[in-house]
């Protein structure tokens, strides 16, 4: 029987198949951890006297609670609270005690977990990857089966390297056409979510394919798979191809020499067989796609940059418009912007920073706008600085920060104020996501940069 990419990866990791008495047991190749969702899992290990079964398959970094401002003269980092400092220190203790590789402040690889792990070549095609973080779906860009888990499950994987899981359903999202100028992966995924809805993927693992997906860079595919969870899906996957191999080659954890050749053979064979079937099939046409933005309080409330706001004829739309301070029939273009955030595991890779810098070069952001540019990792920071991107940002009037999640989740003190409108390259525009009472518009790095310059929501195509 022809198999899909997802079927192949799933079956290769089944320790025990599902039975009437218990769910399937799935083996996990790579377990990523960070400070927020792991401490209670280590507590369980201690309470039960358990060890980490495979520290060599576990990789840790710190990203959510870490400040993005540098330490002061005495080396003190400006944590938002004592609790945040303690949480980071707890991760350091846990990793030391259980023998887990941690990318701490001194590491050249520290960064947002979903940015730094692929950079290290730790995520490879055909792997199962989990993390106590819903945007683990990012790693599906490599043809890995990667999904977010809860903290109880983090404990399960630490102790057993396995998860109790029933096989999700499969969904094919076929993306055809060539998107229009001034757009990229972010606009494509927003359009997909707009079409299938924020629970369109519930219970499913998505495979993305089609000409628009093949044309994306690996960075673009990471942006795409990253937001699969925003369509309700557990995971998103793209079959490995030559771009995947080229991206992985030579990375610190990638196979070398003869192992590399063998791995490439194996990886390319993972693609779905012709005739493989899916539980759900959706076609999305992105021919001539315009830049996309959200207007409401979830990522499915989105549309073309020149959209007019919908009628408030149902309670959810009404509530969203009210929260956002918007009126039906108005345009989003031209709305005054207070804050611009370029960052997050969705859009803080080098290509994203280049995209924003291309618009900011030689320009200034509007005087009333506060703009943060937060690289996704130490590697991104170093590469961006080597290219001089940080100078473009600071000369334009933006702040250039240290890597971390920052204003995507507003846990570390970087936040937008009540009532402020933030154009953000992150992934969630939920109420209060970027600070209590703050309003978020999700967009690409190009749209964010254009809006910073204009001081109002702007079409990036006018700046190309």
């Amino acid at each position, binding site marked *: 029987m022809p198999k899909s990419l997802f079927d192949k990866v799933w079956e*290769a990791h089944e*320790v*025990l198949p599902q039975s009437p*008495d218990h769910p399937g*047991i799935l*083996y996990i190749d790579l377990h990523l951890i960070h400070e*927020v*969702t792991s*401490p*209670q899992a280590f*507590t*369980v290990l201690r309470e*039960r006297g358990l060890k980490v*079964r495979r520290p060599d398959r576990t990789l840790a970094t710190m990203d*959510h*609670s870490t400040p993005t401002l540098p330490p002061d003269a005495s080396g003190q980092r400006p944590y*938002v*609270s004592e*609790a*945040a400092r*303690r*949480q980071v220190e*707890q991760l350091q203790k846990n990793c030391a005690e259980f023998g887990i590789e941690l990318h701490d402040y001194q590491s050249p690889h520290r960064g947002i977990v979903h940015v730094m792990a692929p950079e290290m070549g730790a995520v490879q095609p055909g792997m199962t990857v989990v993390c*106590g*973080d*819903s945007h683990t779906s990012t790693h599906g860009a490599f043809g890995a089966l990667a999904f977010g*888990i*809860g*903290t*109880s*499950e983090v*404990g*399960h994987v630490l*102790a*057993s*390297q*396995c998860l*109790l899981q*029933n096989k*999700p359903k499969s969904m094919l999202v076929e993306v055809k056409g060539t998107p229009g100028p001034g757009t990229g992966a972010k606009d494509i995924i927003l359009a997909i979510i707009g079409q299938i809805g*924020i*629970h369109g993927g*519930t219970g499913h693992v998505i495979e993305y394919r089609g000409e628009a997906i093949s044309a994306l860079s690996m960075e673009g595919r990471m942006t795409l798979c990253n937001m699969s*969870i925003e369509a*309700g899906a*557990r995971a998103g996957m793209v079959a490995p191809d030559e771009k995947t191999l080229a991206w992985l080659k030579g990375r610190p954890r990638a196979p070398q020499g003869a192992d590399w050749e063998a791995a490439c053979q194996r990886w390319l064979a993972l693609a779905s067989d012709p005739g493989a079937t899916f539980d759900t099939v959706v076609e999305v046409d992105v021919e001539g796609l315009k830049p996309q933005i959200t207007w409401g309080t*979830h990522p499915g409330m989105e549309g073309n940059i020149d959209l007019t706001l919908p009628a408030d004829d149902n*309670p*959810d739309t009404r*509530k969203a418009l009210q929260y956002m301070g918007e009126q039906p029939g108005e345009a989003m273009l031209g709305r005054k912007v207070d804050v611009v955030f370029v960052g997050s595991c969705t859009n803080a890779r080098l290509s994203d920073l280049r995209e924003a810098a291309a618009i900011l070069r030689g320009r200034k952001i509007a005087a009333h706008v506060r703009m943060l540019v937060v690289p996704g990792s130490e590697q991104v920071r170093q590469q961006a600085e080597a290219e001089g991107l940080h100078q473009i940002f600071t000369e334009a009037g933006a702040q250039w920060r240290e890597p971390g999640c920052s204003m995507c989740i*507003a*846990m570390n003190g970087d936040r937008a104020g*009540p009532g402020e409108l933030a154009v953000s390259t992150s992934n*969630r525009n*939920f*109420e*209060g*996501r970027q600070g*209590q*009472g703050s309003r978020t518009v999700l967009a690409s790095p190009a749209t964010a940069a254009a809006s910073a310059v204009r001081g109002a929501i702007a079409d990036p195509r006018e700046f190309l």
Partner: protein
Amino acid sequence: MEALKRIESCFVVLPEENIDTDQIIPAQFLTTTSREGLGQHAFHHWRYDENGQPKPDFPFNQAENTHCQVLVAGHNFGCGSSREHAPWALLDMGLKAVISSEIADIFRNNSLKNGLLAIVVPESLHRQLLQASERKIIIDLENQQLTFAGQHHAFEVDGFARHCMLNGLDPLGFLLEQQPAIDAYENTHG
């Protein structure tokens, strides 16, 4: 995890659709390293004003609701972030079950693992619950049946999760018993 067989309780209604885990427990409370004490922060942005005073119109701030063990919420409850702090917070508020016409995958998994029963009901029953004037419900996990307004309704719940909840078992115990199969897998897969 405490064994859970039967709940007989009033229920609280939050009719909004797509209540995400950022609303259930905002990120500012995630710096904790413990599971305890999150109930006071549940629905923080909806429950308290900017000065930290309770908003009187929020259902969980109303006296008749403070002892309810069941939440009936709008479609697609628990979407967004995978934070297990969300079911921890709801349990810490005294809730034992959440009912909706759709519940997001990760939240549902997390809830069942902690003894918070997550039940998906058909749209028609969901509508009745949202609009009920008499908010009383009986949930019988043993027989997978809920009773509302004198009517019985069967519901589905994952068999293994049900077994664990009825007996107060933690799934980690089961997983650790599978060590021989895991060893065998590792031996053949490197």
